[in-house]
């Protein structure tokens, strides 16, 4: 029997375990294995590796599974709470923005009046008007950023039983 035949058999044995082989290849391989002890032994050894890999079971510790469930529930409740808080913050931001838009002409007029009354340069009360718009937005952004830094996983797990 030529070496090429054994090489082909070896390749097919490996392929049959990883990707599967076509029916004609399977037929050829089976015929070869019947007549070649060395290749049959190789096929059986690989088959045994696969069978052993498939038959092994490693259960996790039930206490770990239970602790995981508990942590997931705690974290789910935390995320829900956080979501409610964020929703409230977004609503407050939207309300504040709407109010800002509606009150803009009035605020502009009021600041202009104060500026003229106190003889302030135009730039000063214009800046004051811009701050009227930007300070609340910056404040909300700061709160959102702070909430975000509090959310990474890990912090909330400390102190819980394993």
């Amino acid at each position, binding site marked *: 029997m030529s070496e090429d035949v054994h090489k082909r058999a070896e390749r097919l044995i*490996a392929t049959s*375990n*990883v*990707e599967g082989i076509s029916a004609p290849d399977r037929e050829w391989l089976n015929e070869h294995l019947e007549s070649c002890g060395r290749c049959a032994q*190789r096929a059986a*050894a*690989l088959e*045994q*590796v*696969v069978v*052993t*890999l*498939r*038959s*092994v*079971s*490693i*259960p*996790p*510790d039930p206490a*770990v*599974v239970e*602790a*995981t*469930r508990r*942590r*997931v*529930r705690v*974290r*789910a409740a935390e*995320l*829900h709470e956080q979501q409610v808080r964020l929703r409230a913050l977004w609503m407050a931001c939207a309300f504040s923005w709407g109010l800002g838009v509606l009150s803009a002409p009035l605020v502009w007029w009021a600041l202009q009046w104060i500026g003229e009354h106190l003889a302030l340069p135009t730039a000063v009360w214009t800046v004051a008007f811009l701050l009227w718009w930007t300070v609340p937005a910056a404040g909300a952004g700061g709160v959102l950023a702070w909430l975000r830094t509090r959310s990474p*996983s890990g912090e909330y*797990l400390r102190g819980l039983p394993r």
Partner: protein
Amino acid sequence: MDTAACWFANPAWVSMEREEKTIARGLRRRDPELLDGLIERFQYRLFRYLLFLTGSRETAEDLFQETWIRVLERGRQYDGRSKFETWLFAIARHLAIDLLRRKQPQSLEALSGSNEESQIPFQTSGERSAFESLAQREEGERLAAALANLPGSYREVLVLRFQEELALEEIASVVEAPLSTIKSRLYRGLEAMRELLEGERS
């Protein structure tokens, strides 16, 4: 028959597709009941994968918990188009690599060094007689020792293919490597396992 017709004609595909979509919807809602069910269902597979990946029971247990927390937090990223377990294993793998990088900036190979003693505790599966259980336990311990001597990249694909029964494309997606690399690792891993097990026998 066109693709869509084939798809809908196959009840198994339809059912799987529906199931994945249900999981995706539940994860978007961060439904604790759904997560409870998923933990129950995938606990063995996920733990086994992590144990083989890390080679340490303690590390696998920590990563097991972190994986489910991550599933809860990032659940909105799962769109239900791929199998849930593929996404789950990919998350677990990323966490394992992150952990390794924190410990030492090396590759996955170092996650369970071949010089470390394997801590993989085996248990027989299914209902068996005491003799069968003993025989399988011995076989399992030999397998653990052989796997511990394999490079992490080989061990990982062997576990995903033959224990978790993932398709080659799914393994490529979990491992984020080309299909050809996955096949090559499987061939080499199987061959290495055979040599190691035969070496032990002889």
